[in-house]
C-alpha cells in the first residue's frame, strides 16, 4: 500500500459497518425469539410433552379406541372429547362433528404406521404414532367445515387419506348428543 493511513481508514469503515450489521441482526433475532417465548408463555402453548402409551395390537378390541367409542363425546364438565383412530389409509370416523365455542380435547392414535393429524385453517398439527396417544386441546370459534388430511407420508395410499371436520352450532350439537345418549359417539359419517 502506498498510503498506510488511508488503508487503515478504509478497514475501519468496513469493520464499523460489519459491527453495526451484526448488532442489527442480533437485535432482530432477539425480537423474534422474544415473540416466540411470549406466545408460548402467554398462551401456555407448547408441543405436547406427556407420553401416554397404548398397545396398537389390541386397541381395536379393548380400551377407549374400540370402534363404538370413536367420535365426539360430551364430558360431565361440558367439554367435548373426540377420539380418532388413524390407519392405512383412513381416519375413523371419516367425518368429525364438533361444536363451536366449546373446549375440545382430541385423543388420537395410530394402529399401524406414523400418520399426521392436521386440521386446515387451524393450528392443530400433530403426529399420530402407533403405541402413543396424541392429546391436544382447542376451541373452534366459528362454525364451518375443515379438511383433515394425513400429512405424514404413510404409504402408497397416503394421498387419499383425509377426513372432514364439521364445526356446528353448540346448541344443535348438544341436542344431538342428548338424543344419541351413550349408545354411540357423535360423528357426521352418513
Amino acid at each position: 500500500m502506498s498510503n498506510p493511513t488511508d488503508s487503515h481508514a478504509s478497514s475501519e469503515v468496513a469493520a464499523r459497518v460489519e459491527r453495526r450489521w451484526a448488532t442489527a441482526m442480533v437485535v432482530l433475532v432477539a425480537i423474534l425469539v422474544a415473540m416466540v417465548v411470549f406466545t408460548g408463555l402467554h398462551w401456555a402453548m407448547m408441543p405436547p410433552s406427556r407420553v401416554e402409551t397404548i398397545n396398537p395390537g389390541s386397541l381395536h378390541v379393548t380400551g377407549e379406541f374400540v370402534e363404538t367409542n370413536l367420535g365426539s363425546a360430551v364430558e360431565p364438565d361440558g367439554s367435548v372429547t373426540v377420539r380418532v383412530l388413524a390407519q392405512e389409509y383412513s381416519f375413523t370416523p371419516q367425518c368429525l362433528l364438533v361444536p363451536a365455542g366449546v373446549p375440545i380435547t382430541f385423543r388420537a392414535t395410530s394402529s399401524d404406521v406414523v400418520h399426521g393429524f392436521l386440521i386446515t385453517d387451524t393450528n392443530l398439527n400433530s403426529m399420530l404414532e402407533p403405541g402413543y396417544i396424541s392429546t391436544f386441546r382447542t376451541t373452534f370459534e366459528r362454525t364451518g367445515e375443515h379438511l383433515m388430511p394425513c400429512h405424514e407420508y404413510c404409504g402408497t395410499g397416503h394421498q387419499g387419506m383425509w377426513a372432514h371436520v364439521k364445526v356446528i352450532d353448540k346448541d344443535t350439537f348438544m341436542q344431538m348428543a342428548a338424543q344419541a345418549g351413550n349408545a354411540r359417539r357423535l360423528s357426521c359419517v352418513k
Partner: protein
Amino acid sequence: MIETPVPEMPGGPTQAERVDEIVRRGPCGALAVAGIATALVIVMWFMFYFIVFLPRGVIQ
C-alpha cells in the same frame, strides 16, 4: 475470471489508492441488497405470525 490490468494514469493515484478510496465510502450497495433481503424475510415472518398463526387460535 477476467483480470485485465486497469490502466494507470501517470501521476494519478495508484490502483491500491483507488481501491482504498472506494472502500472508505462504505459498502452501500451490499447493505442495500442485504437490507432489502432481510426486510422481506422479516416482513413475511410477521405477516405469517399476525395474519395466519394468531387468528388460527391456541392449541395446548
